[in-house]
């Protein structure tokens, strides 16, 4: 006789996705976004699902919890869940609003999301959100649940958990919020944790800490982790198994070292290639001439943001966004500015472009001090100093055609009109690798990479001499990232452009920049040749920053000592 209560075979996968098909029911009919996706999750193992935007990673994750976002419907395949000590449950067969699936959500399968700010309720305390998760699945009184919430926060290494439970999400930093999210997802000790890009919105140093934390918790609790990411470096850091997805298909699955060392599918190779290329300076890079003159001399630049409060508007808090920055930029040179969010790197760029008005210091642009320059002088310099912004979706007016967008600076400055203008726009589009025939279209008809090309075309329309690029590739997928960087390199070589290149990504800086300045809390802590700083950092903060960057090689996992830089008060 078999035992009355079936013990699950522990070697059986805890989640089996079999031939899953999900379609979006749109006006034009059914559009499939997942085409026969199959893979397994195992207890105590981390499975990384990698792919670029639109590959169906997030939809797969949500379908496991049977919460396909509308108008999506499951139209084929099954997802099986083998909970410990119970019979197999077919998750896809459950009513998506029923009790059975709700008992599993949060109770046996936990989930964390990308944006730790918007994924937590802004108007409830962290504690009350965790207590809610606990009491939905455990029959405990409120007081006990709160004690459990404090324990959960302590487990994710949040300092002062007794106080932190009564805080709100907006009172935490990004990393702390993500820790709280993890605490909430793990409060009921689920057997599976689904993490949808949990570190994408975080700084590298914070990302490294969160990855360490997740690994430790997995060892402690033995759960299976499904980790969604687009970052091959992160995959190499934490994955046991890798699932590569492209356009709703699983193109490759396998052990992490196998996928990295012997990738079979061309798409996997392309992804890895894009990452590998970013591990060294670009081959196409043209270095500035040794005797190139300085185009920009920044001295003691300063901008403090003051928070004023109360009746007398006295200053209660000062943020030293830019606190005495000095550097030189030579003609044809690319200077990288790297730092964490809040280090002031964006503010520096905007001060030089005079989007912000610096409070002190000089910015000497070929003899003209941009800080004290009047409106007329600035108008002239603004033709020569252009900016490129991070988000190609937000920086293009959706109601203007590509032609109008690129032509605008030409018309405003009275450079071209009529037929001449059309030719100029066509030429610019060709230069950035777009078909001039597309100039009558609107931005929404273009992909992220193409849009960033349009932004670049607009920036070079006036034949500038200096381009300030603020995280120009951060919103792009890796494979497109190198394409845009290569385009910028080509333009730099052809036009002799100088660049100030602001980024949080060391790999991108290494690929693109001749020199790099490392910023921390409004100051440059280290500046020098890019290769020299990356291979032999001097300042402890630079060392900490570099040690946090994930290396896209699973064989090197655990070979590095990570450390966090704590500034002396």
């Amino acid at each position: 006789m078999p035992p009355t209560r079936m013990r699950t075979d522990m070697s059986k996968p805890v989640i089996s996705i079999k031939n899953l098909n999900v379609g979006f029911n749109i006006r034009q009919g059914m559009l499939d976004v997942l085409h026969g996706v199959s893979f397994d999750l195992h207890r105590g193992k981390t499975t990384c699902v990698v792919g670029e935007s639109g590959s169906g990673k997030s939809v797969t994750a949500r379908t496991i919890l049977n919460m396909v976002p509308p108008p999506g419907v499951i139209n084929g395949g099954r997802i099986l869940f083998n909970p410990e000590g119970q019979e197999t449950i077919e998750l896809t067969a459950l009513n998506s609003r029923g009790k059975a699936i709700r008992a599993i959500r949060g109770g046996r399968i936990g989930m964390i999301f990308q944006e730790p700010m918007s994924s937590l309720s802004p108007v409830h305390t962290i504690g009350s959100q965790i207590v809610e998760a606990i009491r939905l699945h455990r029959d405990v009184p409120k007081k006990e649940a709160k004690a459990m919430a404090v324990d959960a926060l302590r487990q994710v290494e949040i300092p002062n958990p007794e106080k932190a439970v009564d805080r709100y999400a907006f009172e935490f930093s990004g990393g702390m919020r993500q820790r709280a999210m993890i605490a909430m997802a793990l409060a009921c000790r689920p057997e599976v944790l689904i993490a949808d890009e949990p570190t994408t919105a975080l700084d590298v140093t914070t990302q490294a800490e969160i990855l360490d934390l997740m690994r430790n918790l997995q060892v402690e609790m033995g759960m299976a982790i499904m980790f969604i990411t687009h970052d091959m470096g992160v995959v190499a850091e934490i994955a046991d198994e890798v699932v590569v997805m492209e356009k709703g298909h699983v193109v490759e699955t396998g052990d992490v070292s196998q996928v990295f060392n012997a990738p079979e599918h061309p798409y996997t190779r392309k992804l890895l290639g894009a990452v590998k290329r970013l591990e060294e300076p670009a081959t196409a890079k043209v270095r500035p001439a040794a005797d190139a003159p300085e185009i920009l001399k920044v001295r003691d630049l300063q901008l403090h943001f003051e928070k004023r409060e109360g009746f007398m508007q006295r200053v209660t808090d000062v943020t030293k966004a830019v606190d005495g920055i000095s550097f030189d930029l030579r003609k044809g040179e690319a200077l990288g500015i790297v730092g964490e969010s809040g280090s002031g790197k964006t503010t520096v760029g905007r001060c030089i472009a005079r989007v912000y008005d610096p409070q002190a210091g000089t910015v000497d642009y070929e003899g003209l001090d941009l800080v004290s320059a009047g409106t007329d002088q600035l108008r002239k310099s603004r033709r020569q100093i252009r900016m490129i912004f991070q988000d190609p979706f937000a920086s293009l007016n959706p109601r203007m055609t590509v032609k109008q967008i690129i032509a605008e600076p030409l018309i405003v400055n009275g450079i071209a009109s009529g037929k001449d203008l059309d030719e100029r726009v066509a030429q610019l589009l060709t230069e950035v690798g777009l078909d001039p025939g597309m100039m009558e279209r609107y931005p929404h008809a273009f992909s992220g990479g193409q849009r960033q090309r349009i932004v670049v075309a607009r920036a070079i329309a006036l034949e500038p001499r200096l381009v300030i690029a603020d995280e120009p590739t951060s919103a792009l997928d890796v494979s497109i990232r190198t394409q845009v960087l290569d385009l910028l390199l080509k333009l730099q070589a052809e036009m002799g452009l100088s660049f100030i290149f602001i980024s949080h990504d060391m790999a991108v800086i290494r690929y693109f920049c001749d020199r790099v300045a490392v910023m921390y809390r409004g100051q440059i802590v280290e500046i020098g040749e890019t290769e020299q700083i990356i291979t032999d950092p001097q300042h402890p903060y630079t060392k900490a920053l570099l040690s946090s960057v994930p290396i896209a090689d699973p064989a090197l996992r655990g070979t590095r000592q990570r450390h966090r830089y704590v500034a002396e008060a």
Partner: protein
Amino acid sequence: MLLRYILKRILWMVPFLFAVSIVAFLLIQAPPGDYLTTYIAKLGESNEVLDQASIENLRARFGLDRPLYVQYFKWVANLLQGDFGMSFEWRQPVSDLIWQRMGLTVMLSFSTLLFTWAVAFPIGVYSAVRKYSIGDYVATTLGFIGLATPNFLLALIMMYVGVVYFGSDVGGLFSNEYKNAPWSLAKFWDLLKHLWLPIVVLGTSATASLIRIMRANLLDELNKPYVDTARAKGLSEFWLIMKYPVRVALNPFVSTIGWVLPNLVSGAVVTAIVLSLPTAGPLMLQALLAQDMYLAGAFVLLLSSLTVVGMLLSDILLVLLDPRVKYE
């Protein structure tokens, strides 16, 4: 912390109300002439003519011959002692006149407010959650009709329907036999029978716009990631919508409370006249037309104070509802 905040806000109200009293006084003086000019014109209509001496006599009696600032300080000095002055037209103390009508006005307005929220809130939530369903379309259509129909027109139509098809007694808040009778259960019942009509008429457009506001607010919130987080916790659909997005969507809702209080007094004057409701609105209109300055002044002051108090209430509620709002 909250108490200190409230105290601070109340202290701020003092200089503000002082400024308001000046503006109110100037506002009433702004139209050419004074109460006497209106009074004489009225007498002239019935072919009575006052000689110059008795006009001067009256003007001195009302204190209208004094310079403006003297009149103002006298008014404010009396205000501080709780004396709002005499109404020229009614020959009664202003405070008596206003209080007589305030009771019913407040009752009517609060019933309307409750009606508005009770109807608008669930419908708004429903039409956001079931966006583009038949129910949503019905609510939206009715909402637009409600918004577009002028209140007094609706009042006239409903009165017509009430009288012709149901033979009920509409207009006013009481039947004739109870108008001057002391309060009793029967009078109260009579009041309830009359009350529904003004409530529906006065509440319709507010309900319609609140439905639209609630729907729009909630639609913005429903796709926020924290809703997904709540769903992934295993919360049931009803509770997760009530607890998270609806709660956040309430914020703009609460900010509008500040405008409700002054509306109690001045809102729907036309409707009140059409339905011959014994509320404060028609009285205020009349006072302004007749340049009955102390009565009108008291009303303007009352409206401003209610606005300030309403704003304070909504700010306090907002602080309680949303921890992101700082006390500063």
